[in-house]
């Protein structure tokens, strides 16, 4: 059974394609959205809502937003262990797979995971590694905007259409321009910003709150900061619906009140909204389309609920966007469709997806100006961005000086005309024979970029016909096969709380969080926590369920009265 997973910065979902179309699987708490948060407690690892609560009560042992670190070797310390982002994602994946298996009643061996279209080679490999560490095969990664198109069933529309998918998630921003016709979904262009998302809008509110109360967000203790962020997250959501929102935060014994209205929030977010313009413009330019040639603009991602987004879209494209599918679930539903496509589900026979390479790939060249001066460091593109993949292109290169002993073909990924600002992926050294002049010592370089984002470089010498090959597997900051095996073994030793414990753990974690937040209620909360722990030890499931429900209601009352 192949499932489709949306591994998001703030939330993750899992789904599959079945008789009634795409469906999403609920987790142990009955929700389809599982927060992408991992926490370590004394007996093992927690993922999801329980972990999220622990962001406030045990911030040193909890981590979130690690999707941004995928592809790098940044390690997080939880307890006495260091975790890489792949391992954290793997734990989230395991939790999702367990949820899917519980509902399906069969084993899940493979998944299609969605990644932002702008994810680099390294980031995609890291996502695959996370799947490996979670014990599933990940053969296909689907770009999130394509998933959105599948979710809206745009492929099922009659005739043809051109759509712009505007995906503003928790941490990333993606723009894609798709054309759909005759059962084909073609991506024309894709652009985005890997560091722009709903969390940045939240940061803006946090900074404004701190400025108003003359605090420094960096100097707040982590549990207080987490509390502030939780409150302001609610404020942000309320602002999407109303003209004004207020919050009350209890810090350090004081109660701080804060009100913000829509106009002020818009003004504060102005720089972020401006940042969204550049990818939109670039995608439209690369697709060579005018706004009137678009049929629909589709909004995806929780953060796209903000009215600023709708305003930007209508200003730039002269139309109101589509968002009738729940923006939080769109990508996961689309990933489920993609999973169905991969498993050649009969109901989905007719849709072919083509995708594009989101960044330009090329090599470094030197140029000679009219005065004969040679300058190095220029980027010469071989595969242009937004070319349909798979693609293979070649170009010819020659040495600059007659007496050169070798030719260095280095491979860069990026958009800047100077290689210094681009990302280097690898290099090949071609030794040259002396005695031949520059014209004879040329090489032909062929870049082949496949559907799964693997780049293969082939360099053929003109004079000898010898071929040098380089497959870009290794990236600094990623794990090699040996490392993966080791970490898999290490992860296996980590105890993960069984699924049936999730509800209990979640409510306990919530109680602990409230203990941190509501100082005047601490005595009462402590008593409840102690009592519930005692009940848990009795292992009487009915009693436990009963007690849990009561505790849940009591905690609701505490939060409602605050």
């Amino acid at each position, binding site marked *: 059974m192949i499932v489709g997973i949306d591994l998001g910065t703030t939330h993750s979902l899992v789904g599959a394609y079945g008789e009634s179309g795409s469906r999403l699987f609920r987790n142990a708490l009955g929700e389809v959205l599982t927060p992408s948060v991992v926490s370590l407690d004394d007996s093992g690892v927690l993922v999801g809502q329980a972990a999220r609560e622990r962001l406030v009560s045990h911030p040193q042992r909890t981590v979130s937003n690690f999707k941004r670190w995928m592809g790098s070797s940044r390690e997080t310390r939880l307890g006495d262990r260091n975790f890489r982002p792949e391992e954290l994602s793997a734990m989230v994946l395991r939790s999702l797979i367990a949820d899917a298996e519980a509902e399906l009643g069969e084993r899940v061996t493979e998944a299609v995971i969605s990644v932002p279209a702008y994810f680099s080679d390294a980031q995609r490999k890291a996502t695959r590694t996370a799947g490996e560490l979670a014990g599933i095969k990940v053969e296909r990664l689907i770009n999130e905007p394509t998933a959105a198109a599948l979710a809206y069933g745009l492929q099922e529309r009659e005739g*043809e259409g051109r759509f712009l998918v505007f995906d503003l998630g928790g941490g990333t921003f993606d723009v894609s321009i798709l054309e759909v*016709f*005759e*059962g*084909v979904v073609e991506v024309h262009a894709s652009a985005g910003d890997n560091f722009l998302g709903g969390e940045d809008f939240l940061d803006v509110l946090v900074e404004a709150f701190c400025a108003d109360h003359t605090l420094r967000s960096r100097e707040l203790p982590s549990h207080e900061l987490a509390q502030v962020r939780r409150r302001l997250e609610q404020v942000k959501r309320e602002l999407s619906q109303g003209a004004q929102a207020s919050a009350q935060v209890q810090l350090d014994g004081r109660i701080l009140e804060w009100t913000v209205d829509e106009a002020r929030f818009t003004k504060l977010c102005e720089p972020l909204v*401006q940042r969204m*313009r*550049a990818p939109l*413009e*670039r995608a*439209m*330019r*690369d697709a*060579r389309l*005018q*706004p*009137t*040639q678009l049929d629909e603009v589709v909004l995806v991602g929780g953060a796209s609920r903000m009215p600023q987004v709708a305003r930007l879209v*209508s*200003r*730039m494209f*002269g139309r109101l966007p589509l968002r009738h599918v729940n923006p939080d679930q769109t990508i996961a539903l689309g990933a489920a469709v993609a999973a169905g496509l991969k498993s050649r589900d009969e109901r989905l026979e*007719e849709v*072919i997806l*083509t*995708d594009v390479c989101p960044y*330009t790939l*090329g090599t470094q060249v030197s*140029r000679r*100006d009219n005065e004969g001066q040679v*300058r190095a460091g*220029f*980027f010469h*593109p071989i595969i*242009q*961005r937004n070319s*349909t*993949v*798979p*693609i*293979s292109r070649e170009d010819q290169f020659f040495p600059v000086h007659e007496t050169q002993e070798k030719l260095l073909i280095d491979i860069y990924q990026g*958009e*800047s*005309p*100077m290689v210094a600002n681009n990302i280097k992926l690898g290099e090949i050294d071609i030794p040259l024979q002396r005695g031949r*002049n520059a014209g004879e010592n040329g090489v032909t370089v062929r870049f082949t970029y*496949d*559907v799964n984002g693997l780049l293969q470089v082939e360099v053929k010498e003109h004079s000898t016909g010898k071929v040098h090959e380089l497959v870009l597997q290794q990236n600094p900051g990623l794990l090699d096969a040996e490392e993966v095996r080791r970490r898999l073994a290490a992860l296996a030793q980590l105890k993960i709380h069984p699924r049936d414990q999730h509800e209990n753990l979640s409510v306990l974690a919530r109680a602990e969080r409230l203990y941190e937040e509501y100082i005047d209620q601490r005595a009462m909360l402590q008593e409840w926590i102690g009592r519930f722990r005692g009940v848990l030890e009795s292992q009487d499931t009915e009693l436990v369920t009963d007690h849990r429900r009561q505790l849940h209601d009591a905690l609701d009352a505490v939060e409602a009265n605050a």
Partner: protein
Amino acid sequence: MWALDALGLARDADERDVKRAYAKQLKVTRPDEDPEGFQRLHDAYRYALEHVRERAWRGDDEEEVSTETPAEAEELAPIDQIASADVLPGPEASADSVATAIALDTALASTDTEEEDDALDLPAFLDQCIAHLSQDDPASLRHWLESQPALWSLQMKPHIGRWLLQALDERGSPVSSDNFEVMLKFFDMDHVLSGVDAWFLQSLGYRLRLRHELQPGHERELGRRIAAGTPVHERFDLVRRAMKQLRRPFAWPGALWFALPYGRAPQMRRLVWNLDGGRIDHLGDAIDVRQAQFWLDAGDTSRMSTPRRAVAAARCVALIWVVGLIALAVRWLVADIAPDQRGTEAMQAAILLVGGPGVAYALWEFWIAIRGYLHWQCAPEGEVVRWPLLRFFWVPLLVGLAVLEQQLGYTVAASWLGILACVTGTLRLCRRANITFSFGGWRLLFLIPFAKGVFGLGALALIYPYFSAGLGATFWLIDALRHTRVLWEAMRMRFRRPVADSGT
């Protein structure tokens, strides 16, 4: 058309047929199963689509009447043509295309919710942009650009960007490098597929930055670049002083006065050189070109030039006069001079003050000449010097002349020639073989016992020309033997060159 054939279509197929054929074949040749087949199919699809579209456009163009409705005007897509061009639209690339663009913008503006002027006054807007580019700091510039309603139009923005680049290229307005980057980033021109030549952008940015730095008040930024070797705390004053001088119209007295302090001329040369790699002709409106040229020449120690001589002469005059006047003042104040002696004293003073600089200058020229002679003889083999053959045989020539003179009886001439040969030979060997004699500190004590011997040797050399000439010849021979291989290669190259060309 090969693409249409590859898709199995007839000649008169339209866009919809092309898409349908592509979709049908795509189901068979899937990208993940048959990458190469898919690539061929996709290439055919793209070519066929372009072919069909172009045919439709040309067909439309011929049939259409002059007024175009906005919907059809979009099909023209002038953006396509400019976006794929490698060069900027020149002035001849039309008021027409801009006019069309502006008309399109009017058509689109009617769908906008905001109120806008009917037509954009392009020249005035470009002037405004350039003013902001020259004066704002980067953050304000970005903010201003982002808030311009004219730049929200997806269609107009790239055009305006190109026109702005062209205007900047023509006017050469001062723009700091930060502002230039903000502009490139905003207009999406800082990436490799933008259609604007990277080299052009680099040189333009460099030129505009230079203009910006040369403005009065920006000495700190200029200094960071041109006086990079100077310690930070001295840099600002140095550059400020230098720029003040460079802006003054050139006049000999002023320039020579400025050149008096030791090391000033090479320093000024370095600064002027670092401005733009030695090119100064295009900087005429920021600095005085004659002034700059003067400093380039005066500080150039590799060749003789009028400014250099003038500076040396001025220094000689200044030195002699300062020292001389102080000495004379001291003498006249302290010593008792009889009234009848005053005349001769005054004459002597006059001779000192007039003749002294002359003598000093002559000594300087002599010193330069000696240095030039030694450089000629002792330069490493790879350097290009004048009269290479004469250079090689110079020492033996001197030796021969010395011997000849001695034979003829002109012993004085002979001994001097001998000494010259000896000194030249020794220095030539030592410098080219990098042999140095360092007698620092306590090692000097070892020389004392040998001092008598050294003087003795010197006397011997003076009296017996054969001795000194012989020494010189020996050293010359050693040096020649050390360089045999290089000399042999050089000889071969000279006689080989005409033959080598015929091969290729």
